[in-house]
């Protein structure tokens, strides 16, 4: 396969409106916007459900339902209902990102041992202190795992922005397919794949920085548990 397009320096110009730097920035922009909104919605709900244990069925079913929804269909539905633009694309991506964040936040909080929560309550922590100072730090590897998962899916799926007339890396794929310029398609696909891997690595790094060594096993001489890469509970689209 031809890598000409990918390796052409002209396509890497910082100023060109359809060069890679510009498209990558657009792509990251859609991704970040959707993830931020999804996290703002899903994290507090997941925390609340996990801490109180109420509404667990909602969290589980929403996670399952979200997995079954084809994002392309959701995007089309939004485009048909809202019209062309950033809003329908963002809604579709947010719908995609909420289930993994919600489900893993819930699961992470639930995974905190009862005795630990009992001890926290017993030493006189208030409910919000228990949630923020004990449950969230202990659940953090799982919660970040969910965020990584969501970010993978959103990065992958943000290509559909181009289908809805916006920019991002999807442009190379759809324009290349439309004009039968396969090297452009390959270039877009390669950059997209690399971007996804890089974002995952960045989040993995953030996870190492944020998670207490006592939780993820780095603090232990002999504990092989808990230090696992993010669980692929849902797949890329």
């Amino acid at each position, binding site marked *: 396969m031809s890598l000409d397009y990918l390796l052409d320096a002209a396509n890497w110009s910082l100023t060109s409106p359809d060069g890679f730097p510009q498209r990558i920035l657009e792509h990251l922009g859609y991704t970040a916007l959707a993830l931020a909104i999804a996290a703002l919605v899903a994290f507090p709900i997941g925390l609340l459900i996990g801490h109180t244990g109420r509404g667990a069925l909602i969290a589980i079913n929403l996670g399952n339902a979200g997995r079954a929804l084809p994002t392309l269909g959701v995007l089309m539905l939004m485009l048909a209902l809202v019209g062309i633009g950033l809003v329908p694309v963002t809604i579709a991506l947010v719908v995609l990102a909420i289930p993994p964040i919600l489900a893993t936040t819930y699961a992470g909080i639930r995974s905190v041992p009862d*005795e630990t929560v009992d001890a926290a309550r*017993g030493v006189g922590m208030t409910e919000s202190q228990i949630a923020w100072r004990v449950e969230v730090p202990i659940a953090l590897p799982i919660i970040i795992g969910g965020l990584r998962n969501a970010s993978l899916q959103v990065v992958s799926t943000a290509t559909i922005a181009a289908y809805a007339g916006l920019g991002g890396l999807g442009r190379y794929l759809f324009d290349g397919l439309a004009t039968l310029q396969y090297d452009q398609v390959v270039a877009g696909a390669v950059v997209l794949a690399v971007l996804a891997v890089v974002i995952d690595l960045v989040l993995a790094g953030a996870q190492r920085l944020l998670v*207490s060594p006592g939780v993820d096993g780095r603090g*232990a001489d002999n504990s092989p548990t808990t230090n696992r890469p993010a669980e692929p509970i849902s797949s890329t689209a």
Partner: protein
Amino acid sequence: MIEFEGVTKRYPDGTVAVEDLSLKVETGRITVFVGPSGCGKTTALRMINRMIQPTSGRILIDGDDVTSRPDADLRRGIGYVIQGAGLFPHRTVLDNVATVPVLQGVSRREARASARELLERVGLSANLGDRYPSQLSGGQQQRVGVARALAADPPVLLMDEPFSAVDPVVRDDLQQELLRLQGDLGKTIVLVTHDIDEAIRLGDKVAVFAQGARLAQYAAPADLLAVPADDFVSSLVGRDRGFRGLGFADGAEIALKPVGHTVDGLTLELDADGRPVGWRGPDGLLPTEGTFSDGANLRTITDLVILSPAGAAVRVDEHGRADGLVLVEDLAGRVRTQQRERLAALTQDQVEEAEAG
């Protein structure tokens, strides 16, 4: 003093964990709640710091109803130790111990400094402070749990099966450590266990719970062994209670024979400093199988008498020099009077109690 006044805990599904419990826990003493699983002992304990809310009745600490303060405030003033310690895995040992002082607004720096001292107090090296709980053994974690409970110097300490998750050798250490600490601190401790031996060993007073936290007996451990209130208590206390009860009887009152006394053809042989070497007899030198010193209880002395080839236990002074012998006959005399004295004392208590209230 902690008082239960007609406390009942009934769950929505109808099960009654604790029914009409009235009980006074003495200040500065260790009170043990013991009973089979599901008897409501843990529920009773957890109602003291309102981890569980009673359905009816009141619990008073030094006269104040525990409901008169916000839950979190109340709990910060009561130490709480649970099975398996329940340490926070994401915090270092020091930060675990510093938890309550920090919650109470003490600066982290100050709280850590006193946490370091506390670690040594519970028998841990202070340099374990920077480790995480997962790097500690079960026994060490449990000690940290005790240090965390003591950090704010609360007058009351609640311990829920604190030593059940560790192996017997470590448990023995931890029990000794608790008794030593309590000797220094004199806290009001309520400890829950299903292990009657632990209850007898640690408790100044033992509350035996039957189903529904019915108080089957509430007595000093020695009395529990000597005079169980009913079949339930006696089956819980188990076998050999007479022998175990000797552990609470002082050995000081037994008549001693001089060291030179010959027993059944055996004479105690001493080294140049007067320390016992063995029993000399026609078949040569036989081992003494140990000695006791002042303050030993009847159980220890009886055990030595049984094991000794001469049927005599050797008493030694603080330098290890033999200074007397307890013969099986003299022990028998003491054991004979022991139970009578205890029964008499119990009756006297009951008379006084009746007069008092």
